[in-house]
């Protein structure tokens, strides 16, 4: 029996290759193993050796490949990282510029919107104030005309009061002119918000009240008191005042 002693290692293992080997004691061969068994064992040993060497070779190749993989990955990652970094830096620069431009644009747009809102808001407020002022002024003029005209027409001409009567006549003609002027302004600045009836009522009031108040025997020494004319004056004035108030409070 020429079994190499070096083979007989029991429970040993090649940790470096990571492959476990079957190891038998020499005494076991001396007493329990015959020649044919030895041949089988020898062939197994050789096969095992070949397998181990093939596996070792493979492992070495694999190790080399595994070693290379991280390097290529590292290289690839490195290149990619570099590219990405550059891209990110470039993108950041581009995005940074775009973001600044966008921010400036948004700020300008916001400021412009605020300006426009302010402009139109205050324009509307001013317009509303104008409408209110002219409307209230018009109502004041109508009330003054009503009071003067009623006093004038409720009494007949009296030569003892000709100065007061003359004052009323002058006042009536002047106020009618003022009413016509204010009514035209009110219609002009508030044209879009006035209904058809309101427009007609305000438009037609000055010529209508002119006919009633300065018609008949106006400025005549033959003038008699006219309750009917006074009633018409009062009704016309009340109607137009309520119309103007409805425009003013809108």
């Amino acid at each position, binding site marked *: 029996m020429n079994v190499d002693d070096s083979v007989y290692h029991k429970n040993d293992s090649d940790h470096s290759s990571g492959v476990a080997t079957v190891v038998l004691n020499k005494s076991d061969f001396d007493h329990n193993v015959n020649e044919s068994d030895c041949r089988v064992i020898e062939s197994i040993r050789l096969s095992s050796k070949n397998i181990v060497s093939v596996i070792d070779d493979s492992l070495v190749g694999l190790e080399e490949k595994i070693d290379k993989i991280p390097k290529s990955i590292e290289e690839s990652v490195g290149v990619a990282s570099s590219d990405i970094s550059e891209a990110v830096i470039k993108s950041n620069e581009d995005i940074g510029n775009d973001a600044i431009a966008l921010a400036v644009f948004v700020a300008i747009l916001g400021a412009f919107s605020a300006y426009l809102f302010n402009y139109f808001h205050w324009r509307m407020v001013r317009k509303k104030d104008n409408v209110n002022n002219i409307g209230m002024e018009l109502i004041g003029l109508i009330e003054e005309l009503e009071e003067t005209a009623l006093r004038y027409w409720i009494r007949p001409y009296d030569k003892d009061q000709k100065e007061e009567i003359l004052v009323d*006549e002058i006042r009536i*003609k*002047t106020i*009618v*002119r003022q009413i*016509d*002027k204010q009514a035209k302004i009110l219609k002009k600045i508030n044209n879009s918000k006035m209904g058809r009836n309101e427009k007609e009522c305000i438009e037609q009031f*000055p*010529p209508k009240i*002119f*006919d009633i*108040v*300065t*018609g*008949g*025997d*106006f*400025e*005549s*020494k*033959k003038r008699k008191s006219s309750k009917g004319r006074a009633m018409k004056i009062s009704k016309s004035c009340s109607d137009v005042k309520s119309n103007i108030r409805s425009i003013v409070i809108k």
Partner: protein
Amino acid sequence: MKELNIGKKFSTDPSGRYIDPDGDASGEAFRENYLRDAINSLEPGEKLVVIIDDGVESYGSSFLVEGFAGMVKYGYIHPKELLDKLDIRYTDEDFEFYKDKIIQYINEAKYNSEEYPRKNNI
């Protein structure tokens, strides 16, 4: 083209309807003594320019009706013919109101609907 300046030729204070009792600044006086003569003196196709705001502050309806529409009411002239011959002018925009009223009164007047007391003398 002839011109009738109310403030300069007639009165700066036109007022009232009739000469009696309202005097020479009344509508009747204006029509009979100024407007009618001026209209009658026009050549065919000629116009009479009436200036209404030169020195005059305001008018009353009684004066305007008697002064202008009276021409139609007493049968002196038809409304369309009168409007064709008249050219009412002003520089103060407020007087547009009186121009509109004059045109309205002439259009509304009924031709020869009343007999004027002095009609046969003119």
